[in-house]
């Protein structure tokens, strides 16, 4: 294996174990998602008919918020203890480092959330035959959330109130996947074809995947200067 491949594998293993193990990992995000999902029917007063039209919308908002949870420490931990400087001078380009961190974020937070999403959807009153679609849409959307969120985390590196700032910066960027994801579920619930909305969701994820690393690496270099 070439040294680059080795470096990539080692970093990937490190990031995945950090994201999965450190600070509660997937359980934290899934727990938060579950809490939000329970909060909404309680707030709505328990009328199931009233929840049905907004079920997919609420589910996606909760998904977006839960994806933002562990973003703050994504780069900050490495910046604080100097690991980011080592990574910057290492064999991998910073763009690859960013991509590896974002993918680990997706695997450790996005995919577990995608598995929890069908349960949440059932709680909110979505019909059971939509569950596979919910999981798929949440998984693809989660990829977009991971890369865009990582970009927000890189931009807010070294700022005061990083967590809040990431949420503000990332909010307009999270709107397209929320709209398309909820739209896909809505269309499927009304018997229409969800493929166009799913296609747009995938397009967003691919867009974030391809452009995120370049913007994110620039932001990281800026924070290290």
């Amino acid at each position, binding site marked *: 294996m070439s040294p680059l491949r080795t470096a990539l594998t080692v970093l990937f293993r490190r990031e995945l174990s950090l994201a999965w193990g450190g600070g509660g990992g997937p359980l934290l995000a899934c727990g938060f998602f579950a809490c939000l999902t329970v909060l909404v029917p309680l707030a709505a007063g328990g009328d199931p008919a009233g929840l049905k039209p907004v079920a997919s919308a609420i589910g996606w908002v909760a998904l977006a918020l839960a994806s933002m949870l562990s973003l703050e420490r994504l780069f900050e931990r490495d910046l604080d203890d100097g690991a980011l400087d080592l990574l910057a001078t290492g064999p991998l380009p910073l763009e690859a480092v960013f991509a590896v961190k974002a993918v680990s974020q997706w695997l450790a937070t996005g995919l577990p959330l995608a598995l929890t999403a069908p349960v949440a959807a059932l709680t909110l009153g979505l019909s059971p035959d939509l569950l596979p679609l919910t999981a798929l849409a949440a998984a693809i959307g989660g990829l977009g959330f991971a890369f865009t969120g990582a970009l927000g985390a890189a*931009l*807010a590196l070294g*700022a*005061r109130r990083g967590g809040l700032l990431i949420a503000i910066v990332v*909010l*307009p960027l999270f709107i397209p996947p929320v*709209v398309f994801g909820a739209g896909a579920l809505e269309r499927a619930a009304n018997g229409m074809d969800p493929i166009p909305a799913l296609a747009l969701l995938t397009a967003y994820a691919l867009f974030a995947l391809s452009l995120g690393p370049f*913007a994110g690496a620039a932001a990281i270099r*800026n924070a290290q*200067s």
Partner: protein
Amino acid sequence: MFGLANPERFMRFTRPVTPGLWALAAVLLAVGTWLSFTAPEDYQQGDTVRIMFVHVPAATLGLMAYAALGISSFFALVFRHPLADAAARAAAVPGAAFTALALVTGSLWGKPMWGAWWAWGDARLMSVLILFLFYLGYIALRASIDDEARAGRAAAVLGLVGLINLPIVKFSVDWWNTLHQPASLLRMGGPSLSEVFLIPLLTMMAAYAALFGALWLTAIRTEITRRRVLTLRARAAMEA
């Protein structure tokens, strides 16, 4: 144009230009307002058509200001130019104000026209709202990082990322089925407005453009002066 990149030359060039722009803006606003009130009533919309003379220029300038912000951010990031950084910062608040004005006046126009103050899911309204949120995110990011140079560069990256929204706003009325009026000015086949409305509209657009130019240049000049004051203070503190 790159000759103006030198801050000293920029200050000298803009010293007469800025008050000129303010005067031009004042004159054009006066003329435009008079023309807006003397334009005839629309056969369908009656008097409410006059909101167009505030709403459309505000929306256009909101977009143009973001383009200015984005291009300045590009120069700030790629060429590490402090003047470009000042220009990006200076475009943010006026641009956000114009966008907010467009959203509010659009809402005031929507109530009599469509019967609704707002339409969630309308592509044009959503994309302009997202534009406004990008402005707010830019201002928030800039304000939250203590080191000014670092804040400027992080905000420049964010500004560039937001540029993707501009074509979406412009073409949203063509790509999606929206309540909002389709393009009547910049379209194939030329403007579809009749002259009696086109002239006041163009006058007000020019007025808003002059106003933005004046605000922008004034803000850049203020920024340069502020940095000079900081440098002088630092120097005085060292010599004391």
